[in-house]
C-alpha cells in the first residue's frame, strides 16, 4: 500500500520556495503581466506626450519674453522638487483616483526636463544659420519649423530620452492611486512577500525604459540624417 504523497513539486513561486525568478510564474500569470505592462506603457507615453505638448508653448513664450524665462524655469523646477508620492495626492482633489492624476503628475516632471531641453536646443542653433534663413526671406514661423526646430532636435531628443526613462520609473509610484502599471504588481508583491512577481515587474520596468530609449535614438537618427556624417556619437 502506498501513501498518498504529493505527486508534483511545489512550483518555484509557491510561498515555501519563493524564488526570485520563476518562469512558471510568468507563464501562469501572463495575462496580469501583459495588462500591467500595457497600462504602464499607456501612462508613460501619455505623460511624456502631454509634457511635450505643454513644453512647446512655454519654451516659445520664454524665448519671446526673456523676462519670463526665469519664471518658467523657476516654477517648473519648484514643481520638480515635489516628490511624486506627494504630488499625486495633491492632484487627487481635482482629478480623483484615476489614471489622469498619474498622467498629469508625471507630465509635470517631464515638462521641466523638456522645457530646458527645448530652450537649450534652440539656443544651440548657430546664429549665422538663423541670419541666412532670414536673409532668404523666411518668416518667423517658417524659420522656427524649417530651421530652428530641426537643428534643435539632437538636444531636444536628448532631453526627451531623460524624460522618458525617468517617467517609466516614476509611473510605478502611481500605485498610490491604484494606477501604477507594473508598480501595482510591485506593490502587491511587497504585501504578499512574493519575490517572483516583484523581480518580473522590476525587470520589465527597466526593459521598457531601455526599449523606449533605443526607440528614441533610432527616431532621432531617422529625423536628423545630417548628424550621422560627423561620426560623433550623439548623447
Amino acid at each position, binding site marked *: 500500500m502506498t501513501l498518498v504523497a504529493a505527486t508534483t513539486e511545489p512550483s518555484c513561486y509557491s510561498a515555501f520556495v519563493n524564488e526570485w525568478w520563476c518562469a512558471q510564474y510568468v507563464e501562469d500569470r501572463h495575462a496580469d503581466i501583459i495588462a500591467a505592462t500595457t497600462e504602464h506603457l499607456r501612462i508613460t507615453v501619455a505623460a511624456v506626450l502631454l509634457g511635450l505638448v505643454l513644453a512647446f508653448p512655454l519654451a516659445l513664450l520664454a524665448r519671446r519674453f526673456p523676462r519670463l524665462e526665469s519664471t518658467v524655469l523657476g516654477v517648473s523646477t519648484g514643481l520638480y522638487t515635489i516628490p511624486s*508620492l506627494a504630488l499625486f*495626492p*495633491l492632484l487627487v*482633489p481635482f482629478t480623483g483616483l484615476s489614471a489622469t492624476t498619474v498622467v498629469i503628475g508625471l507630465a509635470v516632471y517631464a515638462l521641466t526636463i523638456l522645457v530646458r531641453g527645448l530652450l537649450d536646443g534652440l539656443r544651440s542653433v548657430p546664429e549665422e544659420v538663423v541670419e541666412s534663413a532670414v536673409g532668404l526671406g523666411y518668416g518667423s514661423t517658417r524659420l522656427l519649423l524649417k530651421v530652428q526646430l530641426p537643428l534643435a532636435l539632437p538636444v531636444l531628443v536628448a532631453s526627451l530620452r531623460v524624460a522618458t526613462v525617468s517617467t*517609466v520609473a516614476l509611473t510605478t509610484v502611481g500605485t498610490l492611486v491604484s494606477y501604477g502599471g507594473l508598480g501595482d504588481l510591485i506593490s502587491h508583491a*511587497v504585501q504578499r512577500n512574493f519575490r517572483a512577481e516583484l523581480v518580473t515587474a*522590476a525587470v520589465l520596468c527597466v526593459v521598457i525604459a531601455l526599449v523606449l530609449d533605443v526607440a528614441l535614438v533610432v527616431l532621432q537618427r531617422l529625423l536628423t540624417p545630417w548628424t550621422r556624417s560627423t561620426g560623433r556619437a550623439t548623447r
Partner: protein
Amino acid sequence: MTLFGLTWDYLTTASSWTGDGALLDRLVEQLLLTVTALGLALVVALPLALWLGHLGRGGFVAVNVSNMGRAIPTFALLAVLVTADWPGPAYFGPYGRAGLATLIALGLFALPPLVTNAYTAVREVPADVLEAADGMGMSGAQRFWRVELPLALPLVLSGVRLALVQVWATATIAALVAGPGVGAIIVSGFARNHYSEGIGAALVVAVVALLLEIAAASAQRIVRAPVGRRP
C-alpha cells in the same frame, strides 16, 4: 464638507502633529534619513568622482551610473531590499521600520547626480588653466586643491542640490514598502480612505521639499559668489 476643508482641519488640529507616529515624529524621521543618506553618499561619491576627474579617467562610469540610476525605479529597488532576507523590513534605530533598507536605497539614488556632476566639474576646468598651473610648476595635488577644486565647486554643489531633492523624494517613497517617513501618513491615509490625511501629509512633504531646495539654492549662491568671475 469638502476635501479641502477636511485637509485644512487635519493640518490645523494639534493631535495631527504631536503624538506617536504623527506628522512631527515622521518629519524628524525623514529629515534624519535624508541627512544621514546624503552624508554617506557624499563621503563615498565625492572623493572618488573628484579623483577620477583629476586623473581624467573613468568618464564612462560617470555617464552610465547616471543613466542606470534613472532607469531603475526607486520603488522597485526599495521593494527588493525589503523583501530580501537582508536588510529586510526590520526596525533600525531612529530610522524606523525598514530603516536600513531605506538608507541603502537613499544612498544609492544620491550617487548618480553626485558622481556625474563632480566628475564633469573637474573635467570641464579649461585646458589652458591647467596648462598654466603646470607651467607654474604646481604638483598634481597643488593643481587639484588650488585650481581644479575651486573652479569645479559650483557644479559639484549643483550635484549636491540635485542629490538632496532625489533623496527627499526617495525617502517619501519608502512608505510604499511600509517604510519610515511622512510618506507613511500619505500611504495609510489613502489605504484607509482618509484622503484628507494623505493630502495634508503630502502638502507637508511638498512644502519641506521646496524649503530644502530654496535653502540649497541660497547656500549655492553664497559659495559661488567668490568664484563668480567664471562666465
